[in-house]
């Protein structure tokens, strides 16, 4: 149960900045996920913690102790590699025991610990197999077992599920979370898959181009994205540039550049005249032939895609394009020559600030 602190950590490679001013505290027993597109700096940050890279500026502390100058083999930050990196010339037991043997633990303790950990990841009978004889999911578990065996202060996971098929991914991420909670170990997880991040993390750190865009619980990130990037990256969002023109009783009135008006819930009164983005999620937009009601506007349907359990539609609202996600094919209920309207509830949209140049 260790605390990890990053303080104004920065790293560049040649001319390119990989990580800019990264500050974060990971609490004991917490699973924090770094989430972002490739090139956002999440893997570099992980490598900085593991010791495969050294920061150009800033400090990294584990349990209050600075580690940024320690070489990787003295950091006690076990890493589950993306490709597992299992030693092909050692058995499963040999792989799991590796860290313990390096630390010169007594033989009985090693045997006992290996057995414990293999039991934990449900691979008890496979101790004498070689990695090549195992399935992807099993190899994954050996990699986790090997990292947990040495009881590191921090567990690092670098996109551990990217080599698995979709079904296995879902299964394994639940298991990883369960393991982490059961052992109470502080963990940093890196992924570009938002579903993974949202489903297993205590907190999510959304990163973009070396900077932290937002830190929060999965719920906070989703419900209240702080920036257009986060809004778009998590769950996908429709962003309509608007100006605030009124506020009354928890609801703001905003207007879009072609004059279309919307009502949106707003906790604190925004500045009148301020620029903002109106954020509404695709699944919150209802499409129908009923033109009455607030927040209802006439749209034209650009395209529709039927994907089985969900359907996506692309709508044109003035000069804006809206993406809609529904559980059934809505066009079934619409007649071709009838006008189509889109609406959403003011409580299901939000405003985020917009910088105007």
């Amino acid at each position, binding site marked *: 149960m260790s605390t990890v602190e990053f303080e104004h950590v920065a*790293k560049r490679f040649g001319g390119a900045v990989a990580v800019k001013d990264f500050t974060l505290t990971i609490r004991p027993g917490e699973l924090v996920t770094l989430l972002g597109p490739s090139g956002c700096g999440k893997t570099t940050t992980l490598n900085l913690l593991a010791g495969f890279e*050294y*920061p*150009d500026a800033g400090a990294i502390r584990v349990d209050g102790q600075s580690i940024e100058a320690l*070489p990787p083999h003295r950091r006690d930050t076990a890493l589950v590699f993306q490709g597992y990196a299992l030693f092909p010339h050692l058995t499963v037991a040999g792989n799991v025991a590796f860290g313990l043997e390096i630390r010169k633990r007594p033989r009985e303790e090693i045997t006992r610990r290996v057995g414990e950990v293999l039991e934990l990841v449900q691979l008890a009978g496979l101790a004498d197999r070689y990695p090549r004889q195992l399935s992807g999911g099993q190899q994954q578990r050996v990699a986790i077992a090997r990292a947990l065996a040495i009881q590191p202060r921090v567990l690092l996971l670098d996109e551990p599920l990217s080599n698995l098929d979709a079904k296995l991914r879902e299964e394994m991420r639940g298991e990883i979370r369960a393991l982490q909670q059961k052992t109470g170990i502080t963990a940093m997880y890196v992924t570009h898959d938002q579903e993974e991040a949202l489903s297993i993390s205590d907190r999510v750190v959304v990163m973009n181009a070396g900077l932290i865009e937002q830190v929060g619980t999965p719920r906070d990130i989703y419900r209240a994205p702080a920036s257009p990037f986060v809004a778009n990256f998590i769950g996908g969002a429709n962003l309509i540039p608007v100006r605030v023109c009124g506020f009354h009783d928890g609801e703001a009135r905003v207007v879009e550049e072609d004059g279309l008006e919307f009502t949106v819930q707003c906790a604190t009164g925004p500045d009148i005249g301020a620029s903002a983005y109106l954020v509404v999620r695709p699944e919150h937009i209802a499409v129908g032939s009923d033109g009455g009601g607030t927040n209802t506007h006439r749209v034209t349907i650009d395209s529709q895609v039927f994907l089985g359990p969900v359907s996506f539609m692309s709508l044109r609202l003035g000069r804006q394009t809206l993406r809609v996600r529904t559980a059934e094919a809505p066009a079934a209920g619409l007649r071709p020559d009838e006008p189509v309207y889109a609406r959403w509830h003011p409580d299901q949209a939000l405003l985020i600030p917009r910088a105007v140049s």
Partner: protein
Amino acid sequence: MSPRAPSDRWGKRSARLLGAFTVAVCIFLISPILVVFLSSLTTVEYVSFPPVGLSLRWYAEVLSNDEFSGSLLVSLRIALMSAAIATSAGVLAAIGIVRLRFPGRDALNSLFLSPLVIPGIVLGAAILQLYARSGVASSSFSLLLAHIAIGMPYVIRLMVGSLTGFDQRLELAAQNLGASPVTAFRRITLPILFPSIAGAAAFSFIISFEDVNLSLFLASPQATTFPVRIFTYMSQESSPIVSAAGSLLVLIVLIVAIVVDRLVGLARAVGK
């Protein structure tokens, strides 16, 4: 390098040590060859390193010496002929190995490559006993046969590699346009594979030209190759003419090796 990296003194020192060691080994590998070359330039009558003065007189001596120049011609003749035959037989065999399917194909391939693992002296003794001594073949002929046998495996190994990597759809495209299989092979595959074939031929030339073990066993007054001549001189006297002859041997092989590298790539020819 970031200012926060731990002082990697040990890592850097050991890296420098390794580099120095490698350089020392490189010197070890090159020096005997350099010594031979430099000692061939001496002006005096005995082998001296460093050379006393610099002159090419010993190269002139080699070429004017009947025994040396004669054996050089023998070597060139045998190398050219054995390379030609080994390449022809080897290319055909490679085609068979790669294109035909039959039981025991892998075993046959191993059989073709077997001369690579048989010690030269054992093969030499065997050929000597069967062909040369029983008078069935004159020693020039058995020498030629022996050189074909040791050159062919290199040709086959190279050509099997090239043929396996060759996209057969090109041939099929030619056939689709009306060419018979043999014509397609002749007009499409062979021209594309020509560099590999030439490289294989050049490599088997080298193998034949510099062979000593086999040639020593099968040597006779009329069938003495250049390396064998150098060997006999070496064991009898220590004269710079030997250095010059040796350097000449290196020169010829290096020139052909460069040709091989241009055509096929040296590492590939050696089989690594």
